[in-house]
């Protein structure tokens, strides 16, 4: 929350910028609650630590509620006193919907993590880091100058590194965090270099100003500007896990605690994508001929690599469920890139398709992670084969997961997934990117293979070979031997927050399937 860097740009008259507190409330509330949690953690006895989780939930709900007055119109604040059109913080339709997405995503992550923080994860640190990251993520879509954008991106990312490495004493977790950290820092360095080049070429950090000034950069600065644009994009491509900057994803997701993987796959992606949209569509439209084809190629590569790797996942490998979701999220990132590439060819309202798709993806992907978290409670290895017979064991969870997977695949009954894909296709076709649409069509088919394979596993009869082999006298010992250290009966009680998360995502998914307009609305309006 340090947008005051822009003050330096103003020279004359009053230097004090006015602040619209209502506009900045959502990220501010998240940040304030983060501090409250950090402080409360110091004073709460260990037995009362679960309270921190509830404070976090309340804070996120409050931040979401603070979005309500912002749902229509556009409000700007931290504007230059000399030039009121150049603002650092603007809440328009785009910022509103992405803020709702990241805060909602953080809320669902919090629900997923409620039980874990009581058992495995250090509660105080977890909640503080989650809220800080969410505050950064909520700030980012509203940021309208490059400095705020980079700061917001780092506020969102830095806590995420720590969250990934939070599983104490887990080698995989710290390795994942280190991988994530090193590659992310490299990307940030590259991006900052790009930003400085752009600043050198245009003399401003405000996105709208950059847009006008980039259009007529003096000839000798042309190369600097172009290099700056490319380097900035490379930085964001990493954040969105676009190929060839995707390699950190699977290991990071598997090493991270499951709720954190869910958070990264949805909120982390939303952050990267909103940043990418802001710099491409708002700041660099003058260079559309550079980033348009580049993003189109990147989209095709990303979806192909992600889906090809997902297909190759062996279902018996440890953590193959999360690994599959990780690769699938790479593939989905490819689809999300398509409308941004299309925007280069036919106007910036195409990015609405990305927003609509991201909404659908956020809901169903978090839902899938919620069910995965539920299954992981009984079967910590979380292999795809562990999902066999889930329908017999927990019919509702299995139906929900099947629905989420089919939404991701884009086939009925996952109607919202289908229509989200249709909007993306429609953006590509409208922009004349026929080849990209065909590549995506093939990818949709490839993706169906692994989504449907997983769906089919859910409804297979449970493995009967194991059950009769267990002696009736010592069932708990036998189960403990076969399914890891948690020696519980097969059907343990589902923690309420987890059940709420599954129910919430499933309900939203079903409602959106009946009324796709709620999400697709953003594909047809001007967002900025």
């Amino acid at each position: 929350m340090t947008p005051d860097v822009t003050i330096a740009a103003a020279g004359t008259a009053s230097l004090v910028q006015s602040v619209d507190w209502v506009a900045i409330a959502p990220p501010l509330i998240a940040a304030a609650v983060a501090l409250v949690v950090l402080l409360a953690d110091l004073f709460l006895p260990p037995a009362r630590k679960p309270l921190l989780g509830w404070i976090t939930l309340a804070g996120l709900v409050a931040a979401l509620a603070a979005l309500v007055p912002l749902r229509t119109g556009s409000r700007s604040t931290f504007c230059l006193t000399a030039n009121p059109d150049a603002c650092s913080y603007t809440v328009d339709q785009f910022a509103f919907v992405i803020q709702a997405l990241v805060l909602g995503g953080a809320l669902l992550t919090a629900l997923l993590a409620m039980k874990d923080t009581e058992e495995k994860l250090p509660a105080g640190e977890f909640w503080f880091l989650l809220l800080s990251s969410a505050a950064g993520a909520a700030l980012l879509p509203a940021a309208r100058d490059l400095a705020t954008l980079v700061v917001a991106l780092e506020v969102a990312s830095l806590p995420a590194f720590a969250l990934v490495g939070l599983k104490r004493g887990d080698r995989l977790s710290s390795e994942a965090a280190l991988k994530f950290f090193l590659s992310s820092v490299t990307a940030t360095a590259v991006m900052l270099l790009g930003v400085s080049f752009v600043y050198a070429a245009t003399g401003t950090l405000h996105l709208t100003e950059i847009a006008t000034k980039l259009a007529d950069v003096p000839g000798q600065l042309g190369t600097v500007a172009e290099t700056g644009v490319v380097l900035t994009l490379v930085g964001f491509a990493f954040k969105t896990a676009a190929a060839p900057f995707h390699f950190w994803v699977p290991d990071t997701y598997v090493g991270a605690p499951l709720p954190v993987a869910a958070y990264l796959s949805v909120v982390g992606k939303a952050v990267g994508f909103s940043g990418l949209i802001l710099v491409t569509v708002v700041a660099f439209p003058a260079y559309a001929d550079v980033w348009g084809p580049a993003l189109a190629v990147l989209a095709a590569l990303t979806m192909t690599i992600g889906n090809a790797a997902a297909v190759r996942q062996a279902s018996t490998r440890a953590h193959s469920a999360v690994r599959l979701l990780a690769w699938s999220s790479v593939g989905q990132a490819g689809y999300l890139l398509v409308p941004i590439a299309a925007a280069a060819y036919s106007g910036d309202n195409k990015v609405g398709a990305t927003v609509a798709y991201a909404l659908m993806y956020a809901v169903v992907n978090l839902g899938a992670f919620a069910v995965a978290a539920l299954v992981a409670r009984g079967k910590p290895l979380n292999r795809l084969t562990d999902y066999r017979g889930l329908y017999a064991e927990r019919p509702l969870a299995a139906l929900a997961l099947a629905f989420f997977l089919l939404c991701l695949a884009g086939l009925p009954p996952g109607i919202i997934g289908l229509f989200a894909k249709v909007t993306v296709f429609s953006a590509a076709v409208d922009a004349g990117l026929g080849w990209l649409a065909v590549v995506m069509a093939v990818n949709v088919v490839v993706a169906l293979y692994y989504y449907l394979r997983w769906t089919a596993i859910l409804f297979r009869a449970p493995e009967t070979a194991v059950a009769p082999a267990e002696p009736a006298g010592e069932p708990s010992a036998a189960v403990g031997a076969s399914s890891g250290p948690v020696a519980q009966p097969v059907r343990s009680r589902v923690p309420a927050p987890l059940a709420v998360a599954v129910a919430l995502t499933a309900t939203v998914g079903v409602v959106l399937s009946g009324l796709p307009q709620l999400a697709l609305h953003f594909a047809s309006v001007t967002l900025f």
Partner: protein
Amino acid sequence: MQFLLAFIVVVPLIGAVAALLPAPPGLRGKGPDQAVLRHGVTVTGVILVAAIVLALGFDHGHPSKMQATTDIQWIPALNVHLHLGVDGISLPLVVLTALLTFLCALYSYFKMPPGPGPKAFVALLLVLESGTLATFAVLDLVLFFLAFEMVLIPMYFLIARWGGAGRTAAAWKFILYTLLGSVVMLLGLLLIGLKAGTFDMVALATDNGRGLTTSVQVIAVLAIGIGLAVKTPMFPLHSWLPDAHTAAPTVGSVLLAGVLLKMGTYGFVRIVLPIAPHGMHTFAPYLAAFAVAGIIYGSLACLALAKQGNKGDLKRLIAYSSVGHMGFVLLGIASMTPTGVNGALFANIAHGLITGLLFFLVGALKDRYGTADLDTLAGATGAALYGRAPRLGGLLAFAAVASLGLPGLAGFWGEMLAMFGAFDPAAGLSRPAFLTFVAIAALGTLLTAAYLLVVVRRVCMGGKPTEGPQLADIQGYEFAAWSPLVALTVLAGLWPAVLLGLTDPAVQKLLAGGKS
């Protein structure tokens, strides 16, 4: 009326959800399995009655007019309307779908295919019915795609869970193949919708392609055509079909052949012909060429399968025969004449009735013998069905001669009209090329007759074995499930005007667009 059509599309979906819930008190029947199977029969029966009422209430004086229409805005962002309606082209297909699904539900009630419990089976069957009916009832391109996709998941699970040998691979082949086709089709539909500014089929058909440049039409027809050709299936894209049919349970095969394939040809008639006539004009000769190649290929494959010592599977044989029959349908469509298209639509319905019956019969044979392998069935001299189960044998012979297009039965008119249309194709299409195609197709009818007669000889005739298990003749429920198909085959053969009277005005209007 308009509620009736919406009712027909929506109620199976509600029924599918209800099938998953426990039965309410009073409807529990003898057990949960029996209750849910009965639920399936009830829901499909209600839909059949509704479809018949719809057909009776249909204004037969104006079959070219869209009737029972509903038009509600659904997704303004994509300009998608819930636009439903039937005319003379779609009405017979709606009734056929309702009838076949009901017969399948009835058949399953007495003879549930081996596999997991019937709860999911009934639910999937109902979703499948809803998707197929929706395909024939919707008048919006995006909804058409949605309905087209809706049948994939249920059919996948029907094959993969209740199928025979090799079912997993066959189910995958089915769904991946058809999905690839339909996603490519989506690109074409979007291209048309975006360039013309509307997804409404009626408005687009009235425009008759005037709002679209020829290049857009060509690309769109190529994309849509590939998707529909996979579903139909057209000759080089057919390879999913034999596997899917062979592995599917009996009712799966019946519905796959009876109604799912029709979605492809229906799409050609409803979308490609009227909306992008110039594009269709470009591709019509190629379509016709592939169609006749399919006719010949299908019959040769069947002949090879029917030959002694080739271990031909009867279900696979009928699947290949479907490739041939759909070749006639495509030939009729490619002629772009009212005669040809009417023939295509007629052959569509006839194929649904006859092949549906054939798959029922072969399924029954397979249940009795435990195999559909022709060599095992026939043994040295023949399976002697006439002697061992005379009614079953007689019915099989009836279905076979109906399928080979005996005049007086349903199979005849469609193929004859299709060839007749291709004999004198629409203006601008190369007459010599089409004459060649007709000549080749005529040869195909001969080959069709050849292999079907070989099948009849090997299955129905032969020396009656003195020992061996007794073979049950047609059971009551089988009779109930099959006799409507037999009756309609005879009716459509003797009184083709029943169908042609419905389709002809609608076809004339479609081909003429807003000009008439």
